[in-house]
């Protein structure tokens, strides 16, 4: 069906039009109004799928891309993809509406909306693609567009740094994920996620099962800012607030959650998966909530709370994966509820966190401050904003009558269940789950209170603020209001959402279960049980801690910066840079001699090593011709003249000795019965010697007495080693004559080419191409010499003219 593709690619297509809209219409209408049409239309389009998908139908369409490699863009619409698709487009619409009022017309809006649309398209591609490699492509596109959005105000250093850090970490994870995908493709022999799920049995028994799982989890954890990869998220807060609200709370950070949920049917049921996902999730939950307490800037506070809440969802998914282990049955059902809770909280978090970020944006926009130490008492000035913040904050803290309460209750139920599960060596460690979850919830409660009441409660200090404060325009308030309304509505009617959206999503996370047969009703009042008692405890202890916060909060904020993960990351990065710089400057000295030493050393080591290793040294002297006095004399003469070149303290002597060497070589050619060679060698040697002498004439006069070469042992050793290698190799090559030479063919040169001189026939007839190119070499060298000298003289003339 082409319309689905049309809608998935609509953001990309529309992004091409945005610059023109901005250029020609920005004066009259804010560009955002046009852009808002895109997510809205996709949202309306996707809404049509709800009834069918809720009744258990799935859609699958294939668009061929590279058929010869089996790469095609298969769009697969099921409950999970639809849930994410609705979130992306729904929150996207609201965020763009908000950005219309948040972003001034003076900004580079075309950039902003192109990046945002690019992100939206990439995210839709991630959730709807069934092909692993296409999935990866869209996944990286979300990283790239996030990078662009974080560095939107690129003239700020902190923006660039934040963008760089998020890019490094998420792309690192993305590569890990790609490796995991490739292993999955090898194991399952298919690119399709659905087919992988169908081949589950063969994959689970494969040796690469655990490595593939670890690699895929690396991708999910880095993208979803899990411990210890979460450090990029707070720094990504340098992005404009609509971006933080959209990418860094509602959608992109949930891509990792999506990946984990998608892969649960494949990997779930393995103890490693359970421990990693739920363990890392719980640690992230605690770490995020603790660190959020220490923030004074509102946006990083929300960033850490996002990390914490993502940890919560992740741990719920980990617990939910136990259902795969137990399979359909009574104990499996209990954990199915955990996965259900994960999806429920995922939805809830997008609503309240999106609205909270928009609230922070409003505060920032209206007061010019984001630091809670300067803010306070805004309740009277901004009543509507306060109401939204209160709804979001209390929902995040898990209080009734907001949707966060419901998902938190379900979370507590899940951790209580897992402590009793008693599989995968849970035993007594399992008891830690409810304790950590409870403690983290208390901290969550405290920072939510800090967020709401330090900002809006307390005395009002207009003198601390940069601007005259008043309520935000209604357009800006509209989007957070709608989200806040959703927060309340979901509390009162959770089962509408549950029945139509969450249950089909659950059946894609846990396809082996049949959720419709279980009672998955979410109820606000479920009797007086442990969960409710825990919530009451959270409220009591949290309130107590909030009241006495002056006693302990400053101490918590003094936590040494040098022990933070950020510090380790920065130091590690700088250390790596320093290390590579020092390594490079150690061997890249700029000295030609050093480089030559490397080259020669490798030459000797490789050739000598392989000769020794493969027993290639074999001497055969049987074919040797006889030596007569004449030859011996020539050899001695050559050695003497070569040494003279080496040892000469006068350059003229060295050159004359080189000339002697050349003439000796031509004498050898005479002995070897090579008249053409002898002639050429004689002529060339003469000309070369003349050239050498000519060059000498121009070389420095004051340096005419040249010092002897500094005697260097390394040079000696290396040169002897090189000579030895060449000798051994040449002798071994002579000892390994395998075939008869083909010279006999060329001895027909008279019949074939009409030439009596075989060498010349080879040069101009049999192998004439060599000669042609050799002539070109000579021509190019001649031109080079001419240009070098002429350019010099020209420049010299200019010099004189000056």
């Amino acid at each position, binding site marked *: 069906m082409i319309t689905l593709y049309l809608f998935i690619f609509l953001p990309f297509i529309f992004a091409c039009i945005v610059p023109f809209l901005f250029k020609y219409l920005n004066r009259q209408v804010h560009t955002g109004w046009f852009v808002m049409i895109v997510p809205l239309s996709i949202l309306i389009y996707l809404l049509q799928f709800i009834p069918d998908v809720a009744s258990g139908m799935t859609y699958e369409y294939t668009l061929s891309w590279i058929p010869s490699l089996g790469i095609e863009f298969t769009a697969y619409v099921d409950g999970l993809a639809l849930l994410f698709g609705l979130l992306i487009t729904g929150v996207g619409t609201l965020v763009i509406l908000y950005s219309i009022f948040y972003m001034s017309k003076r900004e580079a809006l075309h950039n902003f909306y192109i990046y945002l649309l690019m992100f939206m398209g990439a995210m839709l591609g991630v959730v709807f693609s069934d092909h692993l490699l296409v999935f990866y492509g869209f996944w990286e596109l979300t990283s790239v567009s996030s990078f662009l959005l974080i560095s939107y105000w690129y003239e700020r250093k902190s923006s660039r740094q934040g963008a760089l850090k998020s890019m490094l970490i998420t792309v690192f994870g993305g590569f890990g994920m790609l490796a995991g995908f490739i292993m999955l493709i090898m194991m399952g022999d298919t690119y399709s996620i659905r087919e992988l799920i169908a081949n589950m049995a063969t994959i689970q028994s494969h040796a690469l099962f655990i490595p593939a799982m670890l690699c895929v989890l690396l991708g999910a954890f880095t993208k979803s800012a899990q411990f210890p990869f979460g450090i990029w998220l707070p720094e990504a807060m340098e992005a404009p607030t609509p971006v933080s609200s959209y990418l860094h709370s509602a959608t992109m950070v949930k891509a990792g959650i999506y990946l984990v949920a998608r892969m649960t049917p494949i990997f779930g049921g393995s103890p490693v998966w359970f421990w990693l996902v739920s363990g890392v999730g719980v640690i992230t939950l605690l770490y995020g909530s603790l660190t959020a307490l220490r923030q004074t800037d509102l946006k990083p506070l929300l960033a850490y709370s996002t990390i914490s809440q993502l940890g919560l969802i992740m741990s719920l998914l980990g617990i939910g994966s136990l259902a795969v282990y137990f399979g359909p049955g009574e104990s499996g059902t209990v954990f199915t509820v955990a996965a259900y809770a994960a999806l429920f909280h995922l939805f809830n978090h997008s609503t309240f966190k999106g609205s909270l970020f928009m609230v922070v944006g409003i505060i920032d926009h209206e007061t010019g401050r984001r630091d809670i130490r300067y803010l306070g008492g805004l309740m009277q000035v901004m009543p509507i904003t306060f109401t939204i913040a209160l709804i979001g904050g209390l929902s995040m803290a898990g209080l009734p009558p907001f949707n966060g309460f419901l998902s938190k209750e379900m979370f507590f139920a899940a951790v209580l269940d897992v402590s009793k599960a008693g599989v995968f060596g849970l035993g007594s460690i399992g008891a830690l789950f409810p304790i950590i979850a409870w403690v983290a919830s208390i901290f969550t409660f405290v920072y939510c209170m800090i967020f709401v009441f330090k900002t809006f409660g307390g005395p009002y200090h207009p003198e601390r603020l940069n601007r005259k404060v008043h309520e935000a325009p209604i357009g800006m308030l509209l989007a957070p209001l709608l989200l806040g309304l959703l927060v309340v509505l979901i509390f009162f009617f959770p089962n509408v959402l549950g029945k139509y959206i969450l249950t089909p999503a659950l059946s894609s996370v846990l396809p082996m279960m049949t959720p419709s047969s279980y009672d998955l009703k979410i109820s606000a009042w479920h009797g007086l049980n442990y969960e409710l008692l825990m919530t009451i405890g959270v409220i009591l202890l949290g309130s107590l801690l909030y009241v006495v916060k002056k006693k302990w909060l400053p101490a918590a904020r003094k936590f040494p910066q040098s022990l933070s993960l950020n510090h380790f990351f920065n130091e590690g990065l700088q250390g790596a840079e320093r290390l590579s710089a020092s390594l490079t400057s150690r061997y890249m000295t700029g000295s030609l001699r050093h480089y030559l030493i490397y080259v020669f050393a490798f030459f000797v080591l490789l050739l000598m090593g392989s000769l020794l290793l493969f027993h290639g040294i074999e001497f055969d002297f049987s074919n040797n011709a006889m030596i007569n006095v004449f030859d011996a004399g020539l050899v001695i003469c050559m050695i003497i003249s070569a040494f003279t070149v080496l040892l000469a303290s006068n350059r003229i002597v060295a050159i004359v000795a080189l000339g002697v060497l050349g003439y000796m070589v031509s004498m050898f050619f005479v002995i070897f019965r090579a008249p053409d*060679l002898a002639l050429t060698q004689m002529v060339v040697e003469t000309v070369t010697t003349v050239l050498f002498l000519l060059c000498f004439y121009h070389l420095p006069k004051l340096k005419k007495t040249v010092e002897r070469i500094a005697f260097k042992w390394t040079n000696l050793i290396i040169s002897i080693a090189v000579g030895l290698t060449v*000798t051994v190799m040449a002798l071994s090559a002579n000892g390994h004559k395998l075939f008869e030479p083909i010279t006999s063919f060329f001895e027909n040169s008279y019949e074939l080419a009409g030439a009596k001189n075989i060498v010349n026939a080879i040069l101009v007839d049999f192998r004439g191409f060599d000669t042609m190119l050799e002539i070109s070499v000579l021509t190019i060298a001649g031109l080079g010499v001419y240009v070098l000298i002429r350019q010099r003289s020209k420049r010299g003339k200019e010099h004189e003219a000056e």
Partner: protein
Amino acid sequence: MDTLIVILVGILVSIGTYLILSRHLLRIVLGTSIIGHAVNLLIVASGGLKTGGPPLLGERNKVFTDAIPQALVLTAIVINFAVTALVLVLCYRAYQSFETDDMEQLRGEANE
């Protein structure tokens, strides 16, 4: 005879390498020339030094020395000459521009 030539080649290569590793541009050129000679000799020797007539038909020889290495070396000599000429002029230019032929000084700027 072959062995003797090969040993000679080894010695020449050693000397050439030693010269190439030295500090002065001109000695490096001398070194490359010596290695060029050595390689030419090696190529001719690798064709086998069995005594036979020069590769000229019509001289009533029944056995000829191998003509292919000779053709190869002839090409090599000319190319070697071209390169040497160019390198020599380059040395001259380098000296004119930088007023030194010491390779330790001709190493570019630090941290360029």
